[in-house]
């Protein structure tokens, strides 16, 4: 549809194209789903695969682009060389022109090169082609038409056909079209559209980008092609043989490999499941949204963060370790300090001990004094001992407390120093511990996040995969068992099992196929049922479209289903159906041929019934057979030659003379024609011909095909094409073959060059037939020449009333041999007319067949006799009719004569009186002449003056007659 045109659709149809489009839509949908899947994959971060795919696609596209470019370049180069004999430099110049034009106009090479080629072929000059193309490009841009269409129109215009250009650009001046002025047309187009393409291209950076990208791809492709070629060579010569070799060597290890593969897959899936579980846990604890992909992405992000944090924690720990080490180191100092303190403390302790001792001394002195005062005896001793022990314990406790104090002091000092130095790291560690604690609560607490649908689906997939793993395990085990069982089976059992398995597989495949066919049928029926809704009867429309039908629903369904079935057959390219149709068509063709031959046979018998072939008969056959006269003549000659099933030397010579060919050509042709006369070339006939002419079967069939085509004396293009296609011949070879056969043909068509057609034409056909007929007449033509001419034409039988017909032998090919036969035929007819059937039968027995028919089969002879008898009957009937007519004529004449004699005198007088009253009205003299009017009903009337109507004529004759009576003369022929 032209751009911007209004397109009013009236009739629409559902076609295969429609269903293909539907399939395309489904594929598109599938592709879109694939695209979604690809996008999802990318969301999971598998961008590498996409990048690889893109790289492969880019490579593939590039190689494809380069290959296309190479094809286009070859096309361009070939055309340039063929059309203009261009040199390499000229070709390079044109290629440069194409490249520049691409960049200037944003048109790709695959548009420009075919367009240029078209114009080049039309003009035969690359410069003119460039000029025309520049106009075409601008015109295409200006009109919005396709460059190819505009180029085609300009190419036609360059050859004088402006119709397409006018249709393309209706505004083109009529005078330009009328005068076929290409220059003016180009000027007009350039004036209107000149520079449009470039201006549009300049405003279309994306177009330029597309061209540049295509060029880029081509360049990459050119670079990749050698590498790919090398790769292909490597694959075919090295890799594939090695792979095959490896497979051969490792065939026995395939079972193990399978088992291993299953195990690996299983392990991998489990690992995947574990990963998923972890991801799921992360996903659950991260309240980042509802979309599964986002959650999972966030989970991965969280993992990254957690790992980063773990790294940080480890780092912190390391730092802590370092800090600890440093603290230890620092502790030494502290310990030294502490030692000093301890020493000082010891000093204090010493002082304490000194105080204690002093205290003890004082205490002892006191106790002694007390003893001296309070305790006497052992009590005093016991008390002293107890006191001494307590004091000793107190002293130990004081020592321990002293040590503890020292340790505490050291710890406090070290901690203070550590905290002072590493307080940041500690703070971070505390924070991290808090985070871990928070995560732990989320995992184990009640505030879990619900799984999203996508995450749930992923979990289900993992579960399904686990299930699959189990089934794979089972399958593998089963396989092992089967293998084990097979290994233990005998060969017979193995064969039986294999046969059973094959049968089961076949049955399954059949069932599937049947189910698919049923489903398809149901679908087609449903669709048809839907489409057959008739508007106005409460049925639904199909969209906005109204299917209509006036047929009964059942009939409509049957037809539509058949049509759909045919469509399906067509789509499946059903070879069997095509073969059957072809066979049917061939059968019809064969039947037509047989019918035609039968018809011709009957016609020929009819024509030869009188042993004469007149020009009129040939013309009649020509019309009846729809053949040229020459072809009819040729066919008659051939028919005569082979009609007895034997081919004599004379017949061969006659045909050779007729054609002006060699005797061998004529003999070969006649033999083939003889065998082909029944329309079939049987195997036995083929063998005979092979033996006779030293030909192969193919050669015999080829020759027979040609004889069949030329035997009717005419040749048309369809026959030429048929022969060409069947025998893979060129037109010249077909012509040469026909020449080789020697049978002239009347060619009608355009494929064969007229000069060559003349070589196989009917140049001397008429003369040839005349020669043949002369031979036929002179009786020296061999078996087909009637040496004893038979009954010629049916005799004329003058009949006297009441008498018997008299036989007169006419001229022609008749002769004495058939005189008696002719008389017998007439006798038969007369007897039959008289009802004397016995005499008729006897007379019929005396009738002989014609000379030509006598040499034929009994049926033809009988046909000849029947024809003679029929002709005789017709003649006798004619003679009888003629005699009856003459008898009646004589009786009428006698009656008229009598009526004249008894005419009334009074009536005559009255008539004369009436005429007298009319005297003077006759202005024109008329006359009647003739012989004896009563005896011979021939009257010549000469009318003088003008007579315009029949009534005038009657009046004039009447007046003439009355005038004759009035002047007293008798009514005689010479009266006036």
């Amino acid at each position: 549809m032209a751009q911007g045109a209004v397109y009013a659709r009236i009739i629409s149809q559902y076609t295969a194209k429609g269903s293909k489009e539907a399939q395309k839509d489904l594929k598109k949908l599938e592709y879109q789903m694939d695209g979604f899947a690809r996008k999802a994959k990318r969301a999971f971060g598998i961008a590498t695969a996409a990048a690889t795919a893109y790289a492969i696609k880019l490579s593939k596209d590039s190689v494809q682009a380069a290959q296309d470019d190479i094809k286009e370049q070859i096309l361009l180069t070939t055309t340039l060389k063929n059309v203009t004999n261009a040199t390499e430099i000229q070709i390079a110049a044109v290629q440069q022109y194409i490249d520049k034009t691409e960049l200037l106009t944003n048109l790709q090479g695959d548009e420009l090169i075919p367009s240029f080629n078209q114009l080049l072929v039309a003009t035969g000059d690359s410069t003119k082609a460039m000029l025309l193309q520049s106009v075409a490009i601008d015109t295409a841009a200006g009109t919005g038409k396709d460059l190819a269409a505009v180029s085609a129109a300009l190419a036609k215009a360059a050859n004088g056909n402006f119709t397409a250009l006018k249709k393309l650009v209706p505004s083109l001046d009529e005078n330009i079209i009328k005068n076929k002025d290409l220059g003016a047309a180009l000027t007009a187009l350039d004036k209107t559209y000149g520079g449009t393409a470039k201006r549009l291209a300049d405003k279309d950076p994306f177009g330029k980008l597309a061209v540049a990208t295509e060029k880029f791809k081509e360049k990459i492709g050119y670079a990749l092609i050698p590498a790919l070629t090398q790769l292909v060579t490597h694959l075919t010569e090295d890799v594939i043989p090695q792979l095959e070799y490896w497979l051969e060597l490792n065939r026995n290890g395939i079972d193990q490999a399978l088992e291993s593969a299953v195990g690996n897959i299983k392990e991998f899936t489990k690992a995947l499941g574990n990963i998923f579980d972890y991801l799921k846990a992360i996903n659950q604890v991260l309240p980042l949204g509802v979309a599964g992909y986002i959650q999972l992405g966030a989970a991965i992000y969280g993992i990254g963060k957690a790992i980063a944090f773990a790294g940080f924690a480890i780092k912190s720990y390391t730092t802590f370790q370092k800090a600890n080490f440093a603290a230890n180191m620092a502790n030494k100092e502290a310990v030294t300090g502490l030692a000093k303190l301890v020493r000082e403390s010891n000093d204090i302790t010493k002082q304490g001990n000194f105080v204690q001792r002093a205290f003890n001394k004082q205490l002892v002195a006191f106790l002694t004094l007390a003893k001296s005062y309070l305790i006497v005896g052992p009590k005093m001793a016991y008390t002293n001992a107890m006191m001494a022990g307590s004091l000793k314990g107190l002293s130990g406790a004081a020592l321990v407390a002293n040590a503890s104090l020292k340790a505490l002091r050291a710890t406090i000092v070290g901690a203070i120093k550590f905290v002072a130095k590493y307080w940041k790291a500690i703070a971070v560690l505390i924070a991290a511990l808090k985070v871990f604690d928070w995560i732990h609560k989320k995992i184990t607490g009640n505030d879990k996040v619900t799984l999203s649908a996508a995450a749930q689906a992923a979990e289900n997939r993992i579960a399904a995969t686990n299930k699959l793993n189990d089934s794979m395990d089972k399958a593998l085990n089963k396989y092992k068992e089967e293998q084990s069982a097979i290994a233990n089976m005998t060969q017979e059992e193995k064969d039986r099992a294999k046969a059973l398995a094959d049968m089961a597989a076949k049955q399954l495949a059949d069932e599937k196929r049947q189910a698919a066919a049923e489903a398809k049928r149901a679908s087609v029926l449903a669709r048809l049922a839907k489409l057959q809704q008739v508007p106005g009867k409460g049925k639904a429309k199909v969209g906005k479209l109204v299917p209509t039908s006036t047929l009964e629903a059942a009939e409509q369904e049957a037809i539509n289903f058949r049509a759909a079935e045919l469509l399906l057959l067509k789509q499946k390219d059903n070879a069997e159906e095509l073969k059957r149709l072809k066979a049917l068509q061939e059968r019809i063709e064969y039947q037509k041929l047989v019918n035609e031959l039968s018809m011709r046979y009957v016609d020929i018998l009819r024509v030869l019934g009188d042993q004469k072939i007149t020009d009129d008969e040939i013309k009649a056959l020509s019309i009846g057979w729809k053949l040229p006269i020459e072809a009819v003549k040729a066919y008659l000659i051939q028919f005569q030659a082979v009609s007895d099933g034997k081919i004599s030397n004379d017949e061969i010579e006659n045909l050779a003379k007729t054609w002006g060919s060699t005797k061998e050509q004529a003999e070969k042709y006649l033999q083939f024609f003889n065998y082909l006369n029944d329309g079939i070339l049987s195997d036995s006939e083929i063998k005979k011909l092979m033996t006779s002419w030293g030909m192969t079967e193919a050669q015999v069939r080829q020759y027979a095909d040609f004889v069949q085509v030329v035997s009717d004396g005419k040749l048309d293009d369809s026959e030429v094409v048929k022969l060409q296609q069947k025998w893979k011949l060129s037109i010249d070879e077909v012509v040469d073959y026909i020449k080789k056969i020697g049978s002239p043909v009347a060619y009608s068509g355009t494929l064969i060059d007229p000069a060559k057609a003349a070589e196989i034409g009917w140049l001397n056909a008429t003369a040839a037939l005349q020669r043949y007929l002369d031979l036929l007449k002179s009786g020296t033509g061999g078996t087909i020449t009637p040496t004893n001419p038979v009954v010629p034409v049916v005799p004329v039988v003058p009949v006297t009333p009441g008498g018997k017909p008299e036989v007169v032998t006419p001229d022609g090919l008749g002769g004495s041999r058939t005189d008696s036969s002719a008389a017998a035929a007439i006798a038969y007819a007369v007897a039959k007319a008289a009802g004397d059937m016995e005499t008729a039968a006897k007379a019929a027995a005396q009738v002989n067949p014609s000379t030509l028919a006598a040499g034929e089969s009994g049926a033809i002879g009988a046909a000849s006799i029947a024809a003679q008898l029929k002709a005789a009957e017709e003649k006798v009937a004619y003679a009888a009719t003629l005699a009856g007519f003459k008898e009646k004529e004589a009786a009428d004449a006698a009656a008229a004569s009598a009526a004249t004699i008894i005419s009334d005198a009074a009536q005559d007088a009255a008539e004369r009186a009436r005429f007298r009253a009319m005297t003077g009205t006759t202005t024109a003299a008329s006359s009647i002449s003739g012989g004896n009017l009563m005896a011979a009903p021939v009257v010549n009337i000469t009318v003088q003056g003008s007579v315009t109507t029949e009534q005038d004529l009657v009046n004039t004759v009447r007046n003439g007659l009355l005038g004759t009576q009035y002047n007293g003369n008798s009514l005689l022929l010479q009266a006036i």
Partner: protein
Amino acid sequence: MSQDAIVLTGLKETIDALQAFDKDAVKQFRKVINTELKIAKEDAQSFVKAKPPLSGWNVTPARNPRTRGGAGWPSWDQSIIKAGITSTKAEGKVRGDYTTSAGALKNISAAGVIYELAGRKNKTSGKNGFISNIENREGDASRLVWKSVDKNKDRIIKNVSEALDVAKAKLQRHLDARKG
């Protein structure tokens, strides 16, 4: 503008199949379609007036026909517009409902398209009231090919459907005959 069109089911298949049995029947069917399209085309052409629908519509060819407005406005030339109205049986593009065309009218001249469609989408009057003027004088949009389709649709549907039914019936008879 009419939205409905006759949708023939199994047209191509029927005709292709019938071609093998009865070429005359195929010819007869095609003749019906051709005749109907011709009538519709001639009808559409008859809607093109000799004079422009609005007095301001220039009748001399535009200096630059690609520029809209002023000098670029396509001229009113009855012969060009008529010549631009053609019938076609090209299948063309497959539509969303999986149908292709089996017969259509085309209106391709610029002036013809403007005359056909002016005011179809944009109901508001354009510069100098072009749309309202043309609607007042010539009626609503769909003034040439669509008008013809609307006018002739019922007859075409009837005749073509009947012809197709006849063709299908003939095909069925041939198929039945083949069954023996």
